[in-house]
């Protein structure tokens, strides 16, 4: 009886000891709530085509094409530029790559349009099969495949045009379908 009492009180003491908070882990908690609104977007960049003229700003959405000093008869053209001389005009042409990507939107294809920034009633500008003017955006493709696509830029200069600098900008817009 005496031993049972001692044992019982000992167990009680040990239980109090073991159940004390010192044996429970000391913790602290907190929260970080995160919110964002993800919007769909499209990327359009230009890249030098392996068979085309070297673009300035290749890989960006602001590329440049510099034909340099050119002439209908004789002279030279930059590497990978084709000069074609016809009866009343001559044409410089070169391929360049258009890269379009889409994010956070289900879209099978895209529409690509192009429009000259400055009116040019003398020369003829073409991207692919589309003649480009400043009057309205011309559809280059209505079912472009995402990724890289090669398009040919062609600039046709009449023999009647006076010598001088030709400067213009083609504004492209890619729209997810």
């Amino acid at each position: 009886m005496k031993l049972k009492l001692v044992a019982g009180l000992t167990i009680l003491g040990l239980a109090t000891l073991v159940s004390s908070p010192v044996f429970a882990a000391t913790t602290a908690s907190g929260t970080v709530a995160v919110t964002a609104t993800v919007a769909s977007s499209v990327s359009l960049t230009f890249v030098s085509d392996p068979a085309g003229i070297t673009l300035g700003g290749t890989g960006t959405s602001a590329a440049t094409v510099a034909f340099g000093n050119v002439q209908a008869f004789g002279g030279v053209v930059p590497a990978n530029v084709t000069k074609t001389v016809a009866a009343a005009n001559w044409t410089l042409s070169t391929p360049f790559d258009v890269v379009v990507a889409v994010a956070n939107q289900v879209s099978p294809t895209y529409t690509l349009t192009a429009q000259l920034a400055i009116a040019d009633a003398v020369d003829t500008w073409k991207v692919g099969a589309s003649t480009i003017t400043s009057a309205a955006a011309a559809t280059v493709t209505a079912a472009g495949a995402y990724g890289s696509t090669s398009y040919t830029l062609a600039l046709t200069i009449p023999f009647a045009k006076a010598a001088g600098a030709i400067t213009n900008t083609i504004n492209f817009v890619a729209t997810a379908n």
Partner: protein
Amino acid sequence: MKEQLRQNTIGHDATVLLSSSHQMLKHFWIIAMLLTLALLFVESASAASLTLTFSSDASGISLGGSGTSAATINFASVHAYGGAVPAGVTKSVGATNWTLSAPIDVLVTKAGLGTSVNYTMTAQLQSSGLTYTWKLGSATLTSAFPAMVTAAGVYGSKTAYTFSLTIPFSAAAGTVNNTLDILVTAN
């Protein structure tokens, strides 16, 4: 002594405790010591505590609730391509996804824990975030279980952890909402 015990035996075999005063005294002190130790531990343990707070990192996004244990990060409207991100947020665009990241500061202080040299910190998402990849530091977070962010956190000084959210291009546009449950435990 034994003779005295036999004489005090009651009919139903109960034995009246009549140990010597010496043994009673010894048992009393053992029990008293154990109970005293227990009480001492209880008293000292009740003073032990940790505090956890989050604050805006100088290079990171401005936290809502900075300085408290309930912070918020609001990336607002974001795009993979183009657009803008809040100050202190870095946007990285990959081949099939894009990531928003920003450092946040975590401060853990202790009291009454003289023997604890560092802390363990875990993080767990409240909601399943399977579409996106959530990371705090190098730990990838899920709602399935707490992920170890650090097993040896330093007390008393702000530690910067980079929070990152990776969004696949294939994820639909829309609102992203989730909460990180952070738990720190004294080691």
